[in-house]
């Protein structure tokens, strides 16, 4: 009745061209913010534009961003994984333990990734197998995984990683491009393709928008979710390798509080915390923004905790502002 004025049998594929869609997107807004921060930083500090400085700056977001890509998929599917930082700790502890036994770099990498996968599998089984809410399960495994590190390490630390292992966190692939940054770019492409160009990605969106209808439509909901938790586990394992290699030591408090920063990065990137929407380019931009802000504040000698206030305010305001804007517009329309 309501759409009756629209002519039948002549429905265009899209009303807006690609350009208009991109222009109106959240990602464009983020891009503007990123450019503004970039310019602001270069004006505020003469050291900012130095390529090596910039390269150094990438280390403060690449590891988190790796996890954020997988986390974005998890959140789009309507779930959450708060245990990622603890997986980093457990994987790092496992690698540190192996080093004491004299294990060499390739096996260390396998252990790091393997522990990540196993942790992801535990989450996935609890959530999809038993049907438990992911927020509570991963709060539990968050304590469990880091708790295991504490049992192994107590107040001690593992050091003595082999020299070759240092390359993952400290090595450069070419010129100023570190291994971590290269990996970040590579993973951005992989996750971008996975989410936006494959049937799997479509299933993730479908589950996040309406899990029941997705199930009725033949989407294998449990399997998709299980894979997503495997992926976050794997990414946490990968981040653990990079971080451990960069720090050269393992303490049980490694990467403490990262889960919240990763979630912040994802939400800032425009992923709806309730699931159903969000993009990988958005997450990439959010990672760049958070990295540049941290770096810029660092150059200005602003302490890290002030930076976290800024991130907290950013998180709330990026969600609040569109809501307020919409309301104001509606009020004006009346």
């Amino acid at each position, binding site marked *: 009745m309501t759409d009756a004025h629209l002519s039948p049998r002549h429905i265009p594929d899209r009303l807006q061209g690609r350009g208009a869609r991109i222009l109106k997107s959240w990602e464009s807004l983020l891009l503007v913010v990123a450019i503004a921060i970039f310019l602001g930083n270069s004006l505020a500090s003469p050291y900012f534009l130095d390529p090596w400085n910039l390269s150094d700056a990438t280390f403060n977001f690449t590891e988190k961003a790796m996890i954020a890509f997988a986390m974005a998929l998890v959140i789009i599917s309507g779930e*959450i994984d708060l245990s990622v930082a603890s997986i980093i700790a457990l994987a790092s502890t496992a690698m540190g333990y192996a080093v004491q036994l004299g294990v060499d770099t390739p096996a260390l990498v396998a252990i790091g990734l393997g522990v990540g996968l196993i942790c992801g599998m535990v989450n996935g089984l*609890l959530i999809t197998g*038993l*049907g*438990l*809410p992911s*927020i*509570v*399960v991963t*709060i*539990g*495994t*968050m*304590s*469990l*995984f*880091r*708790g*295991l590190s*504490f*049992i192994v*390490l*107590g*107040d001690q630390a593992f050091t003595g990683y082999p020299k070759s292992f240092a390359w993952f966190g400290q090595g450069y692939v070419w010129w100023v491009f570190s291994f971590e940054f290269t990996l970040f770019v590579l993973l951005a492409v992989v996750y971008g393709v996975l989410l936006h160009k494959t049937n799997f990605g479509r299933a993730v969106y479908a589950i996040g928008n309406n899990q029941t209808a997705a199930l009725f439509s033949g989407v294998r909901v449990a399997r998709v979710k299980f894979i997503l938790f495997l992926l976050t586990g794997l990414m946490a394992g990968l981040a653990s390798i990079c971080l451990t290699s960069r720090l050269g030591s393992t303490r*049980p408090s490694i990467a*403490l*509080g990262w889960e*919240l920063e990763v*979630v*912040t990065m994802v*939400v800032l990137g425009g992923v709806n*915390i*309730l699931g159903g929407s969000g993009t990988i380019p958005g997450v990439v931009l959010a990672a760049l923004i958070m990295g540049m802000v941290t770096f810029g504040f660092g150059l200005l000698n602003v*302490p890290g*905790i*002030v930076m*976290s*206030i800024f*991130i*907290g*305010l950013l*998180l*709330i305001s990026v*969600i*609040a502002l569109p*809501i*307020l804007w919409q309301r104001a517009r509606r009020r004006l329309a009346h």
Partner: protein
Amino acid sequence: MMAKLLKNREILLVVAIVALVALIALRFPAFVTPASFARVYNDTSILIILALGQMAVILTRCIDLSMAANLALSGMVAAMLNTAFPGLPIPLVILVAMALGGLLGMVNGTLVWKLDIPPIVVTLGTLTIYRGLIFLLTDGKWINAHEMSDAFKGLPRLEIAGMPVLSWLSLLMIALMFLVMGRTPLGRAFYAVGGNPHAAVYTGIDVGRTRFFAYCLSGTLAGLSGYLWVSRYAVAYVDIAAGFELDIIAACVIGGISIAGGIGSVAGAVLGALFLGVIKNALPVINISPFAQMAISGTVIIIAVAVNARAEKRKGRVILRKAEAV
């Protein structure tokens, strides 16, 4: 009868705690004395108070991740007030801490109510902001025991009728929460809003406003805990109680408070907190490294949520008449 009793979450939890204590008592009878129980209770008091606040919030289908940060900020302000004006009566300091905590809770509540931002995002944001504010206030400096007045530090330890004020305060809060949750329209509204928000609207309950009040409550209790924490441990700095927000949620989950809202009780929150408290206090006694505590509480959370989920699992629709029980 027995089966019915076992279905009751609170009783199940009491059984679990008794079993745990009995298990410890087998090897270490010294753990099971009234004095030891009183110590464990006193040690768990702050967690109990915080869990009560978190319970109200979770009942309304929200979550408050900022409680520990709120505690740290309110506690720091209380300590600063005390160092700046040592003569200020302690009850007044406590009131200020509670008022500040309540205010911080109102910020959360307003964002959830008026802007409809998902509670987890709001409190994730305010958690970092509140902690950052402590740094801005203090420049990262600590306030140590010798800077605080004796009255400030002494109150929680002061014994009345053989029990420290800290324990009395938590008992008072439990009693108050029993009253609020069971006997006031607001308390019942918490259940209604979480149990069925749509239906709550029909009964004339404002869902957003009810959530706002839940956050005010959790904030105020966090403020009170702020004073108690700082005075008990006689130190205030940016990172006190860091990560404690998860212990609070763990206590609630173990206490059978459903993260989906609408299910839970004061007794559950208290027992959940006590369960964690018993474990924490028992570990040194039974010679397990205190470092194991985190892993154990993680395991307990997972078991608790699995058990609760099983209990909550809806019976399928009964259509066939022969199977109809009612």
